[in-house]
């Protein structure tokens, strides 16, 4: 009896060991190439458009695809899934809602473990690292250069296509876009007789006129202009002054040019004269400061429209959006959310069907209606929902401003070391804006570090 017990316990132990050591993460990658979805010749160049083909035929073998979505409560994706299921009944969606931070970590952890979704929302700033490591499927063969039967090139701006392309591979489909314009408290501008700034001198003057002190004779602490020490805002001002981050072939950093120094100095000037409010990324989003009245002007993307409406509803009607004031030319960084299919995904073709569905104009409008963000396809941007007067913004049409900004936006350089370069630029901004180093020195140091990273 005792020996039988020992034998059973020993067998149980062995079973636990072998099951734990067994490969649960191994997945086989399906053959790349459309077995479902629109048929058509694959193109070797990202985004090119072959001849139109016959109506699509699908492999209707039942399949379940995993979708990871970081939009949170305001997701525009989840409301579309019932409609997708009706149209593609053999495809079941295993939908998982995550937040932006968790998605970054979970996705990367999943890559190592082979536990990846079939389709995920990915911040465009993550794309360089993911694409450089071969984590994302090249969508050129699977798409045949077309989305929903139409050429990709007809549905996005050139900047958007550049943002979706790494090397000669199309690694994501831009789902919402992010480009900066000027948000300002119109009620205060009207009250104080401040004109909407169109250049940097006017911007500085407007910021000064806007700022107030809550105590007589005290430090300016109300209605300030947010100054954000990160690469997004540095790039904004840099591009506006005619500068660039890297040289055309992305082999050397050039952001320590006079344009780069000017880009930092305009922000530093606002901090020095007290009209600027230093707000780092670690401080989170601006809504608490906006709510308290501490911040009354800032530059940011369309998604802030949703943040203002949900976080500061009491200020409805007081805000407006205008083209960001520039020094030499309009310019902004271009980012947003892309739909990506991991190279390890089990059901790429079905995932591509869902991606196309989400990019239909009627679904893209949901990006605005649910998330308050800007849909990426040009067709959706013309829709009535996006061009109707917005009561939060005094009955104006803020999307038209962002659409204009999108035309002169460019994505960050798609180099594998971008994450580290981003940190180098942010550090330089912080050093310069906090007065820890002269502006030129801070930028020169960051350029030296960036060049070393580019050589690796």
């Amino acid at each position, binding site marked *: 009896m005792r020996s039988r017990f020992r034998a059973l316990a020993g067998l149980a132990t062995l079973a636990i060991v072998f099951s734990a050591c067994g490969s649960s993460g191994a997945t086989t990658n399906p053959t790349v190439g459309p077995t479902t979805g629109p048929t058509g010749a694959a193109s070797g160049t990202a985004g090119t458009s072959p001849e139109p083909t016959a109506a699509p035929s699908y492999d209707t073998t039942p399949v379940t695809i995993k979708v990871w979505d970081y939009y949170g409560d305001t997701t525009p994706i989840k409301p579309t899934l019932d409609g997708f299921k009706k149209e593609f009944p053999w495809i079941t969606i295993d939908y998982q809602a995550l937040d932006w931070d968790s998605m*970054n970590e979970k996705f990367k952890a999943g890559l190592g473990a082979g536990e990846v979704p079939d389709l995920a929302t990915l911040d465009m700033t993550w794309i360089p690292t993911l694409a450089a490591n071969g984590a994302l499927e090249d969508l050129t063969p699977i798409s045949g250069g077309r989305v929903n039967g139409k050429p990709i090139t007809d549905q996005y701006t050139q900047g958007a296509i550049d943002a979706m392309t790494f090397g000669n591979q199309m690694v994501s489909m831009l789902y919402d876009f992010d480009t900066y314009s000027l948000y300002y408290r119109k009620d205060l501008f009207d009250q104080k007789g401040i004109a909407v700034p169109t250049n940097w001198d006017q911007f500085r003057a407007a910021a000064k006129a806007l700022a107030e002190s809550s105590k007589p004779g005290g430090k300016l602490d109300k209605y300030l202009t947010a100054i954000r020490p990160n690469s997004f805002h540095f790039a904004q001002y840099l591009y506006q002054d005619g500068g660039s981050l890297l040289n055309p072939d992305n082999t050397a950093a050039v952001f320590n040019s006079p344009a780069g120094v000017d880009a930092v100095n305009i922000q530093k000037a606002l901090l020095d004269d007290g009209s600027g409010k230093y707000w780092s*990324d*670690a401080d989170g989003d601006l809504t608490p400061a906006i709510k308290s009245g501490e911040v009354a002007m800032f530059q940011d993307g369309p998604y802030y429209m949703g943040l203002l409406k949900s976080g500061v509803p009491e200020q409805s009607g007081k805000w407006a959006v205008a083209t960001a004031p520039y020094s030499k030319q309009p310019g902004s960084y271009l980012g947003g959310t892309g739909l990506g299919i991991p190279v390890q995904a089990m059901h790429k073709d079905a995932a591509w069907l869902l991606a196309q569905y989400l990019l239909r104009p009627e679904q893209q409008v949901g990006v605005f209606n649910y998330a308050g963000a800007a849909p990426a396809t040009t067709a959706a941007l013309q829709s009535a929902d996006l061009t109707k007067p917005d009561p939060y913004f005094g009955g104006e049409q803020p999307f038209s401003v962002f659409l204009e900004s999108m035309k002169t936006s460019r994505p960050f350089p798609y180099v594998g070391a971008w994450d580290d370069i981003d940190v180098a630029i942010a*550090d330089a901004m912080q050093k310069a804006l906090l007065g820890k180093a002269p502006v030129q020195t801070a930028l020169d140091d960051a350029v030296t*570090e960036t060049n070393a990273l580019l050589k690796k």
Partner: protein
Amino acid sequence: MIASIARRFRGASAGYLLIAPVLVATVVFLVIPMVVSGYWSLTHYNGIKPPQFVGLQNYLDVLSNPRFQRAFQNTIFFVVMGMGIGPLLGLGSAILLNDNLRLRALFRTSFFLPTMTSLIVVATIWKLMYADNGIINAVAAFFSLPGHPWLTDPTTALPAVVVTAIWQGFGFETVVFLAALQAVPKEYYEAATMDGAGPWAKFRWVTLPGIRPTIVFVYVIGIIGSFQTFDQVFVMTNGGPIQATRTIVFDLVDRFNKLDIGGASAVAYILLVFLAVLSYVQLRLGESRD
């Protein structure tokens, strides 16, 4: 020899079977990952393509990387400040609680409560307290003192994070020291009193030797924990400003997020070796005076 081993196993077989699940879990969830991570530290590996053996290159890259060097420096500061102040506070509060004062249980619970609270919650609360319009600056303003950007000033950001860690951690030290103090035989204090020893002499010659093993334990565990600081930094400052709060584990996670699994593993092993050596030295120092 095999027969004697088999005989010994038969004699203790029930014990081995009882500890088998824990042993298996330790092997599966600790030993195997450590071995695999050790292998990865010798490769260029991004979690997607097969690992490419590069020998000690990852270690050389990590040790020569300025951000890692800064992280190491910051971590040393964190440990020195945290372990310099935290255990002293813990011992001090334990000594106060060791007297039979009223509501001792309430005080003990209050001191230990932060230790039981989630690191993320504590860090979030302190981040709000440190904010420009937070309670710390509000109190300063009440006394007509200027406010300060505690977490955005590179000079004060790290000390501010350490203060948070001390506030959360000293309750654990209090409870541990209190238990140790209560285990020191009262006769020793009586004997010291009869010999004319004052409070300081009693503390120096009775209390400290009596709780020496606990002091060693607190410092070994505390230093290991401090070297692994991540949560407070992630929530409060995200490693900034200007890498002023970047710690070793933050550097490790950052590498992982960049899909540099080999580099992240190298950081983990550098930390492991450093902590193992440090712990060995501490234990030997703790033993040498016994």
